[in-house]
């Protein structure tokens, strides 16, 4: 019994992990683009991006999932997106906004003197970014990114509201058969995934500890 439940849940967990990885794949670069938008010298662009980030961060992710999935059909009579696609789209937008704030904090946290020191030494802007600033930004964003990654693993459970067959949905399906423990058992999968992430981020932080 335990074996077959585990396998079924694992099947759902693969979907969870796919959502997790696809979100990171797109949201990490998109977040960087957004962060440049919020720091842009062009005021209209800056305000547009800031407003989007404000809306996305100011509303519940669960609501956003429902809006992306049901919204186009209900409001514009468009065909529904496949459930999993809708989930990925929502997560990418949502997490890109959170990441953009982390990037912005990381970039603005590097003292301007670092860039000026590079300029005075005749370095090109690209050289300053890659040789001087980048690693300092990475060092600053690793801890908050670690937190976001862990939150993301848990947030994937929200796609249950549009019936994506991820691990929570799989666990719930046992309730009809009179079994509640498989749903509770899903916690183990999340814990393992987040345990791995915690170790990974701890290791990266330690690797970057050689400078301050």
């Amino acid at each position, binding site marked *: 019994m335990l074996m077959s439940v585990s396998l079924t849940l694992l099947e759902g967990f693969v979907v969870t992990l796919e959502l997790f990885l696809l979100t990171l794949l797109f949201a990490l670069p998109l977040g960087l683009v957004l962060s440049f938008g919020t720091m842009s010298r062009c005021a209209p662009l800056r305000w547009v991006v800031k407003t989007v980030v404000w809306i996305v961060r100011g509303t519940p992710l669960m609501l956003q999932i429902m809006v992306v999935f049901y919204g186009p059909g209900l409001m514009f009579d468009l065909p529904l997106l496949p459930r999993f696609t809708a989930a990925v789209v929502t997560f990418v937008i949502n997490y890109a906004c959170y990441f953009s704030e982390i990037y912005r904090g990381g970039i603005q946290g590097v003292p301007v003197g670092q860039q000026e*020191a590079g300029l005075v030494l005749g370095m090109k802007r690209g050289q300053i970014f890659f040789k001087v600033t980048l690693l300092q930004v990475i060092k600053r964003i690793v801890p908050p990114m670690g937190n976001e990654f862990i939150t993301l693993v848990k947030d994937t459970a929200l796609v249950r509201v549009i019936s994506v067959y991820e691990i929570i949905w799989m666990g719930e399906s046992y309730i009809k058969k009179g079994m509640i423990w498989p749903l509770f058992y899903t916690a183990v999968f999340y814990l393992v995934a987040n345990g791995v992430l915690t170790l990974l981020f701890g290791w990266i932080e330690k690797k970057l500890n050689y400078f301050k």
Partner: protein
Amino acid sequence: MPVLDVQHIEKHFGATRVLEDISFSLEQGQALAIIGSSGSGKTTLLRCLNFLETPNQGKILVNGETLFDADDPATQRESEVRKKRLHFGLVFQSFNLFPQYTALENVTLAGELLAKERPDFKQNKRAILEEIRTQGQALLERMGLSDRAGHYPHQLSGGQQQRVAIARALALKPDILCFDEPTSALDPELTGEVLKVIRSLAQQKTTMIIVTHEMAFARDVADQVIFMDGGVIVEQGPARQVIEQPREERTRQFLSRYSQN
């Protein structure tokens, strides 16, 4: 011909005039000290010389060549500004060392990046990098830091960090080395080691501009002194004369406030 000739520099930020009609020149091998109260525009002047700020008026000539002319946009092209910056070195009040690099790497990084632009870099890569490294090591030795080459900035005292920063600026062999209050961020017991290094640079006839609040140091080490107040040069002349027998009332007041503290 002077190494540096600054003519009628003016700088404002919005409505605030920070520099007004600044003119002076500097001969090869001379040290110029700039003194003046807080907010008088000393840092802004050094930043203009290093192209970190763009003056609104005036010209900057080095060895007779016009590096900057506010009336000639051709002298302000970003691509050329980078090369022009190399005529100047700047040592910051807050050191601004690169934290992820060792002392030696801080000194050699910019030189290595510049060397990549040399046409013969690919062929002689090894020899070129080796030479830069040897020079960097020699500079650290001159700063009394040969045993600290492999240390990261956070493992060094403020005085040591500032000496690494001086070595870093010297590595590119600037025509004019600028210091912006190099000892102001240091604990009093650490200022001596940095001043000693600058003093020895002066003895070796390094052309320097030193913004400082250390009046005795300015008097002893500089050849010329400029006193600034409210964005203008109030008085300039031989160091001893300006500091011991200032001609201007404002200079006298400023110096007497200093000797009281």
